[in-house]
């Protein structure tokens, strides 16, 4: 593994250990996607093969069947303490949102239910800065108020690996150990460490998924990349953005910020 990946890996391990030490009652989100599995692998590295906290799958019940099969296999294989959380019906979600965004907002509501039930003070999520402009503005440790809101205009300072963990009891912290990774780093790491992933990422009939979400609002992109090496080569030259297959991103300029300030990952 080259120095860049070694550096990223160690930064993430440090964040995991800092979270576990400094925040009471944490959990890790597992969306079953490529980033999520890299995150799982890094957590195994941080805790010597056994996770000391539960893993949460916020299930919209609209994932691809390949994803559910993957979940069932690796829940056992990795010996996970898995919490499966449900999402409310679409009817209960803000009708003023555009359709795909409204559908995605179910996940925020589902996450909030789990936070309320288990009183988690820290939630580890696998977002990356290179995915989207508002994610690029994130902190590694990002405080959210009781309704899950992100105060985007007043984020705490974070420097020299020091962060604040002293918040009122109503606040939970979103923890982002993959913030500094790029899509291509993720694939190079999956290759180097032989991390298992859902095979929807590989091209079939000239198309593949670059990003996995709910099946009704996620679409495959044109691609002939049918293995990891080909994906890495494709990413070096592509001009298509990673989330281009995510319908919600294209509905309105401010939609992602709107969802995220309300608690979306």
């Amino acid at each position, binding site marked *: 593994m080259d120095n860049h990946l070694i550096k990223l890996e160690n930064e993430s391990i440090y964040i995991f250990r800092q979270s576990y030490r400094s925040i009471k009652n944490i959990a890790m989100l597992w969306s079953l996607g490529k980033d999520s599995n890299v995150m799982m692998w890094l957590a*195994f590295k941080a805790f010597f*093969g056994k996770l000391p906290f539960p893993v949460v799958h916020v299930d919209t019940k609209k994932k691809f069947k390949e994803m559910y099969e993957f979940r069932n296999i690796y829940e056992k294989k990795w010996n996970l303490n898995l919490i499966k959380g449900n999402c409310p019906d679409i009817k209960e979600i803000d009708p003023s949102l555009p359709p795909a965004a409204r559908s995605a907002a179910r996940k925020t509501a589902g996450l909030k239910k789990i936070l309320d039930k288990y009183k988690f003070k820290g939630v580890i999520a696998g977002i990356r800065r290179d995915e989207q*402009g508002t994610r690029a*503005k994130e902190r590694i440790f990002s405080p959210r108020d009781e309704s899950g809101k992100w105060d985007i205009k007043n*984020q705490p300072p974070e*420097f020299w690996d020091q962060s604040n963990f*002293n918040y009122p009891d109503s606040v939970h912290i979103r923890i982002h150990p993959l913030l500094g990774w790029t899509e291509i780093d993720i694939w190079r790491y999956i290759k180097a460490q032989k991390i298992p992933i859902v095979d929807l990422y590989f091209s079939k009939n000239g198309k593949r998924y670059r990003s996995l979400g709910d099946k009704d609002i996620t679409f495959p992109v044109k691609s002939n990349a049918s293995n990891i090496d080909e994906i890495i080569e494709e990413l070096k030259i592509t001009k298509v953005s990673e989330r281009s297959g995510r319908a919600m991103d294209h509905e309105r*300029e401010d939609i992602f910020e709107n969802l995220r300030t309300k608690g979306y990952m």
Partner: protein
Amino acid sequence: MDESQTPRVVTVGHVDHGKSSFIGRLMYELGQVTEEKFQELKNISTKRGMEFEFAFLLDALQDERNQGITIDTTQIFFKTEKRNYIFIDAPGHKEFIKNMITGASSADIAFLIVDVEEGVKEQTKKHAYLLKILGFERVIVLYNKVDKIKYSQEKFDRVNKELESYLSKLEIKVHSSIPISAKNGDNISKKSQKTDWYLGGSVIDILDGFSIDKKDYKDELRFPVQDIYKVGDKRVIVGRVESGKITNDDTLLFLPTNQIVKIKTLESWPSSKTEYNQGECLGITLDEQIFVDVGNVASRPEKPPKLMNRFEANIFWLSQKKVKLNKKYDMKINTGQYQVSINEIKKVIDTNDLQSKKNYDVTKNDICELVFHSSQLIPMDNYSDIKSTGRFCLLDENEIVAGGILNLKNFPDQKEVLSKSKKNIIPEEFYVSEIDRSVMLKHRPGIIWLTGLSGSGKSTIAKGVEKKLFSDNCNVFSLDGDNLRLGLNKDLSFSPEDRTENIRRTAEVAKLFSQAGFLVIVSLISPYRSERRKARDIRPEIFRLIYTKASVDICSKRDVKGLYAKAKSGEIKSFTGISSPYEEPQKPDLVINTAKEQVHESIERLYNFIKKEFSFS
């Protein structure tokens, strides 16, 4: 293409001098703005009645786009033919200095941008000074908007001279000075015809040629303890090598405990190595059992960090709240956290002329030199010797109020002081050590100090927790204020002096019990902050302050012992909460709100807290 290096590059400078536009332009010229993104930005610009605006690539927030300024730092990834980069955009507005620091603190290379038409401004200088504190020894200066001065060399030279003279006073070297236009693309990816008087390279050429090799600290190992895990039957100390390297046959010195011990194994998952370098995380098991706490620093015995309780630091102050002398702050340095106070403001620096300000009030965004004091010994390094163990941040309650770099030249290293003063005292070596007791008991000793008003529930909770711990085979004992006053403290009244003595004696008894390996639960009103602090200082590493919180109203309604009634009628004098003050703890380790929770909930919470803090792994 070199994939082993991804330098992080930050752009700083005064507001509106073109930081975001420059990065946007750079990305565009390198062909790394996707078609999709380009169209999106075009629409966004048109919607706001603007020409195409490169800054929108980074200014993703609605408020940033509408106000045309950068509010928070952002990071964007791109590549040249030579290597990958992470570009960090930092806001220039003085309101957002904390965001600028958040962005710049992780960078390897810094661009300082100046609007060459407007010249050097207040934030240009402040940012330059902050770069110095953040450890930058060299910068690349970009003179933007060169189109606006009609590509005039004369005007460029004038601004360039002023800025170079300022930077040289800060001892920052100018690596290159480049005239650019982010708007028109001059000298960004290729040399511009319009600045033929400029002899240097384009931004890309200069960036690709900038070496980021770091200082090699060789044998100056620093390994701050991040946590201690139980892995199978092994006790694994985890942490990250902050400088130097660690190998499996090393012998380590742990500070501040001053213990020397051989490494048994080095651990990582799924496989381990025999050597770990700077930046790598690992676990260590030791040849013999010693007490190791989070925040301790391991080094080679012959090259240890300094051990300080008084020191100076160069600080950037971020909080609205002013610096308060002799108030307690929390200092976070590496993985450790310590209570410190500021004893003296030596200098407040005006970054405009680098003179000391007359007014010694330190307020938001000030840069100053302070003298600190701590009642604990803290392992640390001079910032000029080792950067990562020579800097810290300061917390006040739930806010990061400052960051600073250490200057340890003017106060003595306590390691040496300690070893000198110990020469005349020959300690008695007992056969049973504290660690032996802990190993046998499977828990560490601890002093769990419950403070709160009479009737707030201290004794009730203490009794419940003691019972639960005892049935777990813990060595546990309760010291109760009322009970002690029947014996050891029966000569003491309730005057402030006697209350102080009451606490001192109780704390000393608690210390003896802790040395015998006990978990001691102390229930004592202990109304004064200063006295509780003295109690903590007796054994700070195992002292935990628990605040049983309930208002005077609630306690006097409960009035289990009928004391409040007597106090109100004047029969009892100096009764805490009625006729004598109670100072609420500012930073207890745990708050138990007995007005809100049931007794069994409170007991459970304190029990879990003790288990977590003192179980021996």
